């Protein structure tokens, strides 16, 4: 379906014509090239860093820990050094930086810089971290522990008819933004200007302010960004620090552009998770208790792990009503590249865990997978594990029933079971499984998921995002925000929100370039918050603007005016918005965000409104598995998303399509493992993401159940589509084999093993 022309993206034409300038397309006179010298060891003591006398170091600048004014990257904590000084804690940890007028000379210089290490024992299993004698953080290597408790598990144990236990695991995932990380730093008198591919200009500015405290002022400029998905949330602070240090020491503008290999191996990943789960149910399959011990493998430094952990812990039980809950969640340290932000931010791990619990229950209770979900779905007025009463825009059941109906789930489930029977029978008997070339196993599965919009807990009230809108000389409102376009359509959405609030054309609204000298800190572009949180400031200011102009007009003409569809009506006068606004050129409107006052969260005890509101979704995936090669193909993917209000309908569909495929990749294509402290991928040759040939037929529906405090009722969307795709796919595979699959990614070899179990045990695990 083609979109309404009003929904065309404002950035589309310059991108289609190849004219948009990404950071690698900048031309800067006298630009030097920087590179990073990295640790080859997962953990080691740095003995010495020596500079070869045989090399002429005159034309080259190098930086080591000694050159860093304040050697830490300020995020939640200050534990991560800009450059390792005494100890390296992961393979690829930056130890030194080199810059030279050409990349070739910089590479030559690297050959003459010798770092001697004494390798040390290291941690590579998150489940061993707490007991390990090796201390990476505090006394027990736990970056953060969260306990969420509700009701009484002993009571649950007494009343339960059945107890089911299982372990669930999720793997690393790499963002694979198509544009690798890149940053340029330019020294200017007392200032360093940093420009790059990034999500959160003020994160970078704050980190550099601390490093160069009192030495240099910092300006951060956002370049056209070629995808991010969270990968350019926290990591650019480190990369910008590197580029800035080289610029500071050399006096030249310096670029650091990662190639794909460096990017994939040494930048943040999605946290792997491991959980031990115990679930109590009554005779009908209703959940009476849930006991979860949940670990996030967080890598060597804290980065954003405590908040990723919080979102995971708060999301796990979100879609179901469970009276007795204990969630103990820990972010633990390992000697691995730090895990960081990634679309979903703990949500995908949590939802996969919970959905596999539901799958396991269905199997143990001999119920259909959708039925056990159906009877436990949480609804409006019920309370979550933190005691939050769901009041606004609750659509858990609506999305669930909608997707089952649209996908014809029940009928297909019966049909595919019958279809698979003879093929499975042949597999069990060890016979050749195919009678016809199209004898493939057909699966259908589902998932139910949610995503809390905006920051977790009191985050929004702490950050107090500020927005400014100014009227320019032409009478056009210009939005000044720190929100960044990285492909998701933020520029179009913001202009459209204000255009709709003022009932004028989108061309009447302008957006300022994102530069920390110009725009206020409206908060980072993360957590599916831009549209809902910052967007609500836009509509608020829009209303304020009209009110202000109405007052001014009354003052000027002596009679009241009314504003309708872009015009001010008063007496026999009709004045277009722009004409009135032009008289007020230079006028500034500012607003700071606060949650509605009744949203309260206690961060000590993890009680209350974890998020002001949730977006809801459900998905059905259909798969085909070849019974000989066990190749997996997702053939159809249905999903229903309830997002309050689609600000740009077409691009909302686009977000769901892209996020869903990224989630399908997470389920069955994207495998990245740690071997002896090293990540075992090098690029797109061995890290496989879906191509056009792998895309399923997608059938997407958006429901709108407005949230009263979002712009036009909008809630968050960006992350949600990814969150529930993997469990739907795995649910379909479990449906085929009727055996537990409690980990992602699922590879053909895993299904081959299941087929071996079928063969040996006639289907019993």
């Amino acid at each position: 379906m083609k979109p309404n022309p009003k929904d065309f993206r404002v950035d589309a034409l310059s991108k289609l014509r190849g004219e948009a300038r990404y950071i690698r397309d900048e031309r800067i006179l006298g630009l030097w090239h920087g590179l990073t010298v990295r640790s080859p060891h997962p953990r080691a003591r740095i003995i010495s860093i020596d500079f070869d006398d045989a090399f002429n170091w005159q034309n080259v600048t190098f930086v080591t820990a000694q050159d860093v004014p304040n050697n830490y990257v300020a995020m939640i904590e200050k534990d991560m050094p800009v450059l390792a000084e005494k100890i390296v804690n992961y393979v690829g940890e930056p130890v030194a930086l080199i810059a030279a007028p050409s990349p070739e000379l910089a590479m030559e210089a690297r050959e003459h810089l010798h770092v001697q290490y004494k390798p040390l024992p290291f941690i590579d299993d998150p489940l061993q971290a707490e007991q390990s004698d090796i201390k990476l953080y505090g006394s027990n290597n736990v970056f953060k522990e969260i306990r969420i408790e509700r009701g009484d598990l002993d009571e649950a144990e007494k009343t339960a008819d059945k107890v089911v236990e299982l372990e669930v695991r999720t793997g690393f995932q790499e963002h694979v933004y198509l544009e690798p990380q890149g940053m340029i730093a330019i020294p200017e008198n007392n200032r360093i200007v940093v420009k790059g591919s990034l999500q959160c200009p003020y994160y970078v500015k704050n980190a550099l302010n601390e490093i160069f405290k009192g030495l240099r002022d910092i300006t951060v400029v956002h370049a056209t960004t070629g995808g991010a998905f969270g990968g350019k949330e926290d990591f650019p602070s480190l990369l910008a620090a590197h580029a800035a240090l080289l610029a500071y020491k050399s006096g030249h503008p310096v670029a650091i552009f990662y190639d794909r290999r460096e990017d994939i191996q040494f930048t943040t990943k999605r946290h792997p998770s491991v959980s031990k789960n115990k679930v109590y149910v009554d005779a009908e399959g209703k959940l009476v208790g849930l006991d979860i011990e949940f670990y996030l493998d967080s890598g060597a430094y804290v980065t954003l792990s405590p908040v990723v952990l919080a979102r995971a812990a708060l999301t796990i039980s979100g879609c179901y009503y469970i009276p007795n809950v204990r969630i103990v969640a820990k972010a633990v340290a390992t000697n691995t590249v730090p895990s960081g932000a990634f679309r979903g931010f703990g949500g995908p791990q949590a939802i996969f865990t919970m959905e596999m619990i539901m799958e396991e229950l269905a199997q143990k209770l001999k119920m259909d997978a959708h039925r056990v979900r159906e009877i436990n779905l949480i609804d409006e007025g019920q309370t979550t594990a933190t005691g939050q009463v769901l009041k606004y825009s609750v659509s858990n059941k609506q999305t669930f029933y909608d997707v089952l109906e649209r996908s014809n789930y029940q009928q297909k489930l019966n049909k595919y079971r019958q279809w698979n029977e003879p093929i499975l029978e042949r597999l069990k008997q060890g016979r050749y499984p195919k009678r016809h070339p199209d004898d493939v196993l057909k699966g259908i599965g589902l998932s139910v998921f949610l995503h809390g919009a905006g920051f977790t807990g009191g985050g929004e009230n702490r950050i107090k995002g500020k927005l400014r809108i100014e009227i320019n000389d032409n009478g056009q409102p210009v939005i000044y925000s720190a929100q960044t376009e990285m492909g998701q359509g933020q520029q179009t959405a913001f202009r459209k929100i204000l255009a709709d609030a003022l009932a004028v054309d989108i061309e009447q609204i302008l957006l300022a370039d994102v530069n920390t000298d110009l725009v206020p800190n409206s908060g980072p572009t993360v957590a599916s918050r831009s549209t809902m949180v910052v967007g609500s400031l836009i509509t608020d200011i829009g209303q304020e603007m009209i009110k202000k102009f109405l007052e001014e007009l009354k003052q000027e003409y002596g009679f009241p005016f009314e504003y309708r569809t872009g015009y001010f009506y008063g007496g026999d006068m009709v004045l277009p918005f722009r004409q009135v606004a032009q008289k007020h050129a230079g006028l500034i409107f500012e607003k700071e965000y606060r949650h509605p006052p009744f949203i309260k969260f206690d961060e000590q005890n993890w009680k209350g409104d974890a998020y002001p509101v949730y977006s809801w979704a459900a998905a059905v995936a259909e798969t085909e598995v070849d019974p000989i090669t066990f190749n997996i193909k997702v053939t159809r993917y249905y999903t229903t998303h309830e997002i309050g209000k689609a600000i740009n309908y077409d691009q909302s569909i686009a977000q769901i399509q892209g996020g869903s495929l990224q989630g399908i990749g997470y389920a069955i294509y994207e495998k990245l493992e740690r071997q002896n402290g090293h990540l075992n991928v090098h690029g797109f040759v061995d890290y496989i993401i879906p191509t056009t040939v792998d895309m399923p037929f997608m059938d997407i529906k958006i429901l709108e159940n407005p949230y009263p405090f979002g712009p036009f009722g909008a809630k968050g969307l960006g992350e949600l589509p990814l969150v529930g795709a993997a469990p739907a796919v795995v649910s379909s595979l479990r449906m085929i084999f009727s055996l537990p699959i409690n980990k992602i990614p699922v590879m053909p070899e895993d299904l081959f093993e299941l087929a071996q179990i079928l063969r040996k045990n006639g289907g019993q695990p």
Partner: protein
Amino acid sequence: MIVSFKVNGRQVDLDIDPRKRLLDVLHDDLQLISVKEGCGEGECGACTVLFDGQNVNSCLVPAFQADGHEIVTLEGLKKWPGFSTIERAYLEHGAVQCAYCLSGFVVSTVAYLKNQTEQTVNEDQVKYALAGNLCRCTGYTKIVEAVKDLAEHEKLKELFAEDWPYER
């Protein structure tokens, strides 16, 4: 070494380092910024250009191999009257997001449309024609829909036959 080739219809003679890739020469030396590096190993297609009318990954072509050949990048496609139709299809289908992959997709789209001879369009053909271009934002659906629409566009065939400004 000196290499001579045609880029977007213009003859260029360059003295280049023989280790350079065609991608480096196009993006860095000739400032054709639509040619993007996404992986440097021929997997992602962001650096796709037409090499004698065929879509190739310019990161896998040593620059000297272009000697005597004809290269067309997205910048060159804009000189062809059919380009606005292609651009419009991508725009109308909402197939643009971060767009780092996009010029590669557009070049592959043109290569497919120009070289396809089948009477009927099927979706699998389109998917295979674009399988060498990776995208992480869109999930491909809107891109494939746009290209399917274009493949059914009668006027484009004429524009290829009569107004294609390049030799191949």
